[in-house]
């Protein structure tokens, strides 16, 4: 196993409690350790509601946020100490795909522009013919017909086509990791399938690791191997999607899954859950961050901060209900993860 990106006890806070900061600090990512592996490319979902820190976590992984505490490693080297050349390689190998397929385009340029730019920028092609071939290959890879796509303006294409061009753009750079931040939330339900399918193919056929950031657990379940669930900066539950979605253990994950609007009129929501109280600042909370909304809250939850407890081989929860399971020795939450391939190998050896 070789680690491509590692987060080692990373914390990211905003605001300051110092001399000039009004005393309000937001802990967007709170002591997270994880690994994105290169040899075993997986699709990993980062789930959580708005304000849970999932976008901050992505920005950390993209290198556009610097950890307040802890370290990020790229191919074993401290990210803060990379040379210029290494940083450039990192920028090519880690590619983002954003939420809004409308805002990523300049309406005055043809869509070819977003595909030409990275080739020029990273000097990927030696000739015009080679550039053309690269672009056409990338478009075909995401299921688009080059002749029907190139030479058009963004408004002439559907949202689904625009988002797939963004996937093709990421592909041109032959990345090792793709960070997809809500790539389908602005796209019609009937077109989501094609985009998710092209993302899945990148993982299976090209061996690219994908981090899929979403609050939609249904698509997460369909497309990913592993999942981590965030709440107010903390990873409250993590493991394989089969373990976490089929048998969620943390009360917050349970609430999330219960709230999914299932397309089944016979199986409707229960009672209205309590709202999050944003009045309490992160630094005020000494116990569990979910305690004020938790249906299973105990007295201790208000004062004791739960650690990561190992529930099964492929699942952990940060909740005092599982204290008796014992604290995890390895803080890296991805130690509970498993790819489909690993699962098959494990089953075969049993």
């Amino acid at each position: 196993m070789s680690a491509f990106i590692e987060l080692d006890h990373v914390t990211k806070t905003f605001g300051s409690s110092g001399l000039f900061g009004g005393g309000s600090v937001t802990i967007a990512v709170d002591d997270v350790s994880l690994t994105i592996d290169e040899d075993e490319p997986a699709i990993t979902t980062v789930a959580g509601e708005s304000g849970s820190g999932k976008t901050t976590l992505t920005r950390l992984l993209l290198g556009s946020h610097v950890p307040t505490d802890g370290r990020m490693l790229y191919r074993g080297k401290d990210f803060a100490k990379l040379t210029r050349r290494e940083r450039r390689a990192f920028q090519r190998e880690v590619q983002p795909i954003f939420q809004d397929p409308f805002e990523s385009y300049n309406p005055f340029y043809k869509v070819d522009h977003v595909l030409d730019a990275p080739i020029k920028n990273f000097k990927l092609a030696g000739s015009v013919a080679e550039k053309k071939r690269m672009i056409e290959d990338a478009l075909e890879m995401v299921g688009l017909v080059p002749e029907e796509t190139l030479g058009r303006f963004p408004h002439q294409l559907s949202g689904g086509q625009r988002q797939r061009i963004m996937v093709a753009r990421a592909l041109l750079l032959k990345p090792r990791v793709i960070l997809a931040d809500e790539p389908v939330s602005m796209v019609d339900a009937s077109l989501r399938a094609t985009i998710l399918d092209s993302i899945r193919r990148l993982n299976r056929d090209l061996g690219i690791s994908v981090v899929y950031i979403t609050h939609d657990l249904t698509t997460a379940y369909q497309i990913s191997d592993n999942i981590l669930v965030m709440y107010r900066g903390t990873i409250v539950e993590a493991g394989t999607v089969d373990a976490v979605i089929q048998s969620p253990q943390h009360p917050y994950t349970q609430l999330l899954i219960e709230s999914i609007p299932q397309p089944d009129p016979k199986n409707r929501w229960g009672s209205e859950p309590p709202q999050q109280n944003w009045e309490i600042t992160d630094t005020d909370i000494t116990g569990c961050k979910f305690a004020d909304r938790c249906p299973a809250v105990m007295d201790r939850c208000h004062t004791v901060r739960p650690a990561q407890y190992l529930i099964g081989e492929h699942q952990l929860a940060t909740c005092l209900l599982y204290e008796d399971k014992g604290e995890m020795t390895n803080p890296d939450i991805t130690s509970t993860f498993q790819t489909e391939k690993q699962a098959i190998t494990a089953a075969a050896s049993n």
Partner: protein
Amino acid sequence: MVQPTIEETCLSTEQAITTYREGARITDVDSLVVEGLSVYYETEDGTVKAVDDVSFTLKQGERFALVGESGSGKTTLAMALMRLIRPPGHIARGSVTLNNRDLTTLTEDEMRQARLSELSLVPQGAMNSLNPVMRIERQLTDGIVDHLADDESITKEELSQTARDLLTRVGLRPEVARLYPHELSGGMKQRVAMAIGISLRPSLIIADEPTSALDVVVQRQIMQTLGRLQEGLDASIMLVGHDMGLVAQFADTIGVMYAGKLVEVGPVEEVFSDPKHPYTKLLIQSLPSLQEKKDFVGIPGLPPLLIHLPQGCAFEDRCPSRFGKCTGTVPEKFSVGARRDVACFLYEGEGAS
């Protein structure tokens, strides 16, 4: 017509749970009757039939969900009910009867009075519809002041009290009245938009994708609050959206739109368990599930351009069940059960309505 103080019709959360769709108060009174409604846009290249010959009925207390992909005309239909279609669009034909009054025949001034007090719109992206430089209280009470009759007056204190009551009813603290929109989260702004929508106790609330940018827990809270408010007012709701999950959770009746036409209408449970129109069937099949992992299936092809509609059924080229008749003639509505219509020749034998 204005009630400055809103009496306590708001159910507590606990009551709401017990009444939630259990014994939903759907009466037999027709609240909204839409007949043959068509909205056309006249362009240089021809007429775009954004909404074409749509008819349906909403009972008082009913929750009707209108679904369809982008460009199917669902938002245009909602705007047409509010009579908010802008040129070059216009209501070409049809009637919209709300509480026995045809809205299409009202004068502009009468329609202005009807909006908010008889039917209200919680718009798409409601969180961006608030005025960023106005306190929430002003935005909540603007409509109330605007609807005062010439001989009516209302004191500042009464308005302030009304704003606070409204906020409490949508699950916000009364102090929110003093805040500006940027101080609120997306879900809170959506709640404010709902509070404005119910401020004059309309009998029909049109909610256009009310939760599209919110995450699942907040979405559920908002929808459940909306349901509670609706039941408190005895109003009907028309929910516009493309999230089939939300529709299944919330609505009593569903209408499916495709290329400007209503292709299927029926009770939500029946349509989900036994969809009739091939488009509805594919739509329901393509929903990802939490029960089993399967390959993603989309609906192949794209909807037709509304300016170049085919001669026959608009879904014909994507339809797996098409046959000879589909290319030449547009299917009319066929009744396939109680309050269940399908616009597809497969059901022609079952009797036209």
